[in-house]
């Protein structure tokens, strides 16, 4: 049981720290729209020039194939340098669509898309959730019918982040008529500029429109855009679960440590005060979240549901941290600031990607082996 970084690792850390100090933009990222796209792509392009894009991707596909300890070092330095949040409009491409293509895409798909992603030239969004199937993903009903060498898609997706500024979408559709649940789905690359697509941005409670409803009205997608086999979309969609441990979510989890340090400085709480006690507990919990993150990364073999515990802990801790931020800010919390913004955004943490309730079910049933309902 070790957490030992070699001299080479330490040198890598200093290189990363230096590069970040020289390159991290001084401005905060815009929250939405074209400005947020421009900012995120410019930052990704700069990272790519420095050799810091796709660090977890295999070298064969333009990445650096870094081992977990280097990922940890990179993201530690990343958040400590206050680099832009990893959860921007490049997140899906870098951490979900890209890895899925690497695992299941054909050579044409990979050759076309992967370089565009890494170089900061395309934005991807995810088209999984539907109005009637939020927590219950397998009940999705957007259909695709084969017509010649094309699929014709009709239906609706919702909660699609960055749909308004995305170039491509990883789209999960029902390609087998009458199929049930996980069967008969396909994972396809959808060009967001295709005729028949309508994007209706939805403003979230933080006042920002970065997700949207997407409507598909006879949208034609070439069959060559199917990733993996037709009707095998569920397996393709699940494929990245193994990769997920290695994604930029590490950076998201580590970022909370920096938040807590900032709050401790901001609060200047009297020793022994109620606020000091709450901050001490949050600091300990955030340290533990980091430890959980590393355990998920450095312990083998990983099980499919390993990430559920850390994911849920992250979500609830993030909310707790931002709630205390509002308590510390008092009247200043009412005025829009990054704290207030992040506080409001944090409400999505226990909802998006499976509600906290669903996550607890998964933990109870899949990890602890309790009977299904």
């Amino acid at each position, binding site marked *: 049981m070790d957490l030992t970084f070699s001299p080479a690792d330490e040198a890598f850390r200093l290189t990363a720290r230096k590069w970040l100090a020289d390159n991290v933009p001084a401005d905060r990222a815009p929250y939405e729209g074209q400005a947020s796209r421009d900012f995120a792509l410019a930052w990704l392009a700069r990272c790519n020039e420095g050799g810091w894009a796709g660090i977890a991707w295999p070298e064969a596909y333009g990445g650096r194939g870094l081992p977990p300890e280097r990922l940890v070092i990179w993201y530690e330095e990343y958040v400590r340098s206050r680099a832009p949040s990893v959860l921007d409009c490049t997140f899906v491409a870098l951490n979900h669509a890209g890895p899925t293509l690497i695992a299941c895409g054909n050579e044409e798909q990979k050759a076309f898309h992967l370089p565009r992603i890494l170089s900061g030239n395309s934005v991807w969004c995810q088209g999984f959730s539907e109005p009637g199937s*939020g927590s219950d993903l397998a009940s999705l009903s957007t259909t695709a019918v084969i017509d010649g060498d094309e699929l014709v898609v009709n239906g609706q997706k919702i909660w699609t982040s960055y749909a308004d500024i995305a170039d491509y979408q990883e789209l999960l559709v029902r390609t087998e008529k009458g199929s049930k649940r996980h069967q008969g789905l396909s994972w396809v690359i959808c060009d967001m500029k295709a005729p028949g697509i309508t994007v209706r941005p939805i*403003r979230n409670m933080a006042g920002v429109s970065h997700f949207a409803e997407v409507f598909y009205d006879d949208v034609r997608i070439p069959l060559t855009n199917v990733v993996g086999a037709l009707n095998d979309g569920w397996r393709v969609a699940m494929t990245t679960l193994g990769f997920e441990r290695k994604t930029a979510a590490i950076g998201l989890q580590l970022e909370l440590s920096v938040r807590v340090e900032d709050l401790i400085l901001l609060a200047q709480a009297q020793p022994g005060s109620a606020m000091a006690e709450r901050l001490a507990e949050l600091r300990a919990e955030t340290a533990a979240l980091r430890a959980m993150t590393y355990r998920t990364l450095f312990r083998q073999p990983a099980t499919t549901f390993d990430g559920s515990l850390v994911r849920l802990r992250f979500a609830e801790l993030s909310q707790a941290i931002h709630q205390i931020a509002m308590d510390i800010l008092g*009247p200043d919390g009412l005025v829009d600031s990054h704290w207030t*913004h992040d506080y409001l955004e944090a*409400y999505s943490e*226990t*909802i998006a990607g499976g509600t906290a*309730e669903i996550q607890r079910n998964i933990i109870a049933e899949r990890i602890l082996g309790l009977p299904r309902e």
Partner: protein
Amino acid sequence: MACDLNQNDEQRQILDAATALLEESFPVSRSLGDDQERIDKLAEFGAFALALDDDLGGTGFTLVEEVLLHVRFGRHIVPAGALAAPVAARIAAELGDNDLAREIATGQIAVSAGILAGDRLRTLDDTKAKLALVFDRRRLELVEIANADGETATGLGQGAELTEFPFVATTRIGASNSASILNVADLLVSAQLLGIAEAARDLAVSYAGMRRQFGKPIGAFQAIKHHCANMAISAEMLSAQLDMAAIAQRDSRDDAAFQTAAARLLAPRVALANARLCIQVHGGIGFSAEADAHRFLKQAHLLRQLGGGAAMLDLASPMAPHR
């Protein structure tokens, strides 16, 4: 007069009338701003004078009815000015300016609710008010802002419209730290927070009964059920305490300060907790600006800045053991 916690006919009538007005004029999902016209309707209704002395426009109701009315206001996210007005009228009267008190109580002069942030006064509603009632810990100050240069700003993720004034640019009218006025202010704030908590509970229960996932209403799942039950327990707790405190203050009972402090301490916690659970029960739509869940959360954040801060442990409990 005995022990009876039912609402009587008169109370039900005034509350029913108010609810009708609120449902027409203050739909929860209305957009921000332009509330002055609506506020004027509340003044016409007599909402701000309800419990004042007859010569100030009072209509014979008491603080208890006023508190119940503000629970309804909370359910409809009525701007905080509607809470500032009746408190400001009381302060004007205390200062001996009955004319001003009447003008405030009848809505001829509008009052904003404000808080201090450093050397700036921040009002929490965008009514074009002439006056602001400044909540400054255990002290309330009435100032004129009509001639001060205000800068508007949005807050809480486009969920609030604030106006900031250099506090020195305002004209001081007078202040109060009288226990009874502070208690009234704390009761009205608590009442509105209770309204939020109740409305959040009702919205969540209604959604849980309707929204289906996995082939049944999500309200059939224990996790959702228990969230709703928790909201109900919290709201009931605060509601009972608020009644207790309002009666104590109306009747000038010895424990009025204690009961009021307890209600005011619990109110923001209950309102925030229920608003949070309401968002969570709604899932994705709850996080969007399209459902009303977030509005309750934001109004709770605004209201909790107003008043409070009584030293709960320094007040004598009516249930202290003998000896």
